[in-house]
């Protein structure tokens, strides 16, 4: 059954400054939506606010997954309702192993190591790296792929991927893009990818592209929008109402 993620008029402040200023986006499971926009336009703020980062203050608006208001839920409950964030800068958690994290997140221990290893293979990550403490001594690109392993094991209904492509080499980028594309058919996952680069979209065909500027969506279009952005930059889309 198709699920709907509906972000309406979301307003979020960081350090007292309103960064998201009425953000709207609606998507269905199985779709791939891409958010592009200049630095400081609010893309990462959106990702952090959706995942309930303690440093981000929601001022108003709504994020509904079907009938459930996610903003009223704890970060844990949001994931358990099916919204997962793959972070731009995944944190080190010394002394804690990923297998224990996933088990504590409710994944059956039986066969878990095998599932992790199989997901690791799909994104060209050496599975033994996952035996280290979470993200400790992993390079930037390895951390991104470790996020993808978690994505594959948790199988969320919607996944936000905050610059999953940064720090990845071309080959890894291809396998990550393919893994995301496959998830849309494997379990009808809704993919919301935040990126600066069109390269991710070579193997991950977007349903829609949204251009963000000044904390809101200023343009929405099909895959052709990425080409326009690459040619003309963000300037034509710049939101001037901010000042």
């Amino acid at each position, binding site marked *: 059954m198709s699920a709907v993620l509906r972000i309406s008029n979301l307003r979020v402040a960081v350090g007292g400054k309103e960064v998201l200023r009425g953000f709207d986006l609606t998507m269905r499971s199985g779709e791939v939506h891409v958010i592009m926009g200049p630095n400081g336009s609010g893309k990462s703020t959106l990702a952090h606010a959706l*995942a*309930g*980062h*303690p*440093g981000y203050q929601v001022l108003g608006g709504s994020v509904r997954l079907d009938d459930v208001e996610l903003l009223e839920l*704890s*970060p*844990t409950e*949001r*994931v*358990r309702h099916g919204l*997962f*964030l793959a*972070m731009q800068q*995944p*944190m*080190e*958690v*010394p*002394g*804690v*192993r990923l297998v*224990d*994290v*996933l088990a*504590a*997140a*409710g994944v059956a221990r039986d066969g878990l190591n095998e599932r992790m290893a199989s997901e690791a293979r799909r994104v060209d990550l050496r599975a033994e790296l996952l035996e280290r*403490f*979470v993200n400790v001594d992993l390079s930037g690109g390895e951390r991104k792929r470790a996020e993808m392993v*978690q994505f594959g094991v*948790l199988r969320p209904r919607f996944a936000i991927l905050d610059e999953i492509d940064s720090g990845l080499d071309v080959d890894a980028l291809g396998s990550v893009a393919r893994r995301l594309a496959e998830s849309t058919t494997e379990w009808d996952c809704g993919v919301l990818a935040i990126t600066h680069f069109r390269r991710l979209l070579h193997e991950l065909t977007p349903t829609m592209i949204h251009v963000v500027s000044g904390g809101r969506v200023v343009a929405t279009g099909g895959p052709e929008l990425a080409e326009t952005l690459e040619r003309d930059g963000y300037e034509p889309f710049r939101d001037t109402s901010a000042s």
Partner: protein
Amino acid sequence: MNSFADSATSLITSRPDAETRRRAWSMFEAAGLPSTLDEVWRYAPLSDFDLDRYRVPTAPVDAPLAPFATSLAGLSSCVVRVADGYRVVDGTDVKGVTIDEAPSSLAFGGDDPFERYASDTFALLNTALAPGTTVVSVEPGVIVHEPIIIIHSAHATASFPRTQVRLGTGSSATVIEYYDGGDGAVVVPVSELEVGPNASLRLVTYQRLAATAWHVARTTAILDRDARLNQSVLGMGANYNRSRNDADLRASGAQNELRTTFLGSGVQVHDFRTRQYHRGARTRSTLLAKGAVAESSRSVYTGLIEIEKGAKKTDARQTNHNLLLSPFAHADSVPNLDIRENDVVCAHASSVGPLDELQRWYLESRGVERHDAERLMIQGFFLEMLDALPSSVARLVEDDVASVLRSVAVIA
């Protein structure tokens, strides 16, 4: 036997080296038990401590090994079992490793033990009352691949285990010391480590005594030229858990990495003391003391870095992090530096506070409930200490740590 002293006399007179023991005993009697007026004993619940509740055993109490100890013993072919301070079983098929017994007053690093322990009441008691010294020696140049496991069980009301580990030039070994039992008992271990030139010792001490035990431990390491000691101390049990760990970096290039951790629950007191004594040039010490206090427990960490004149290019670092898990818990941190040489790098940092909020959020954002995230992070303090161990041993200890943590109400 009407008193602790009577039982001590029985033990002392039954041993061939009674005279030396009597000397230690009389030094103990002259000094008497410490008092909380003494700064280094300020945090100990000494008002509840009465030696006459305990009796010195003249033989080990016969009791089967607990399941965890049995599993641990199964992981190596070099296992020493010590019951109530008495060496009961040892088996080593490992070439280049010998296990012997020596008198409790055995000299160490060329030092007179009476001088070393003159002002340490409990170490004097151990010198008088340890049934003997278990000496584990690794021959020069031998790389021991299997861990050497020393299992201490306490079933008598008092035990005074004494251990020496000696690594010859260029040798390398991993030693695991495990303590269990100790219900209503006093357990006073003295351990001495001698790491020879260019030798490398990894030592993990896992103290898992009953919550009613008094545990007063002292470990002293002497590091020769370019020697390396990587030591982890995990304090889990005991009503009063005192662990003093000294390292004497007496020759150039010696390196000491010491990590200590504990979890306090109930009304436990964890009292960790460290002294890094730099005498040789280009010596390094890194110390990380981490712990959590829950319920009504408390902890104190007192660390001294001492750098002798002439110990040029010494690098000494000390970090202490304490985690408060309850408004009734308390943690103190007392770092001290005593530096008599200018050409050194020396740093210390300490903090008392809650868990890292962003790390916790990261785990929550994977779908982990907050209390599980906190439990995993606290468990992580311990797991970080185990990474020096072979993975089979590390996994076993990890599972045991996890089971203990689950029983502490606030973090279960």
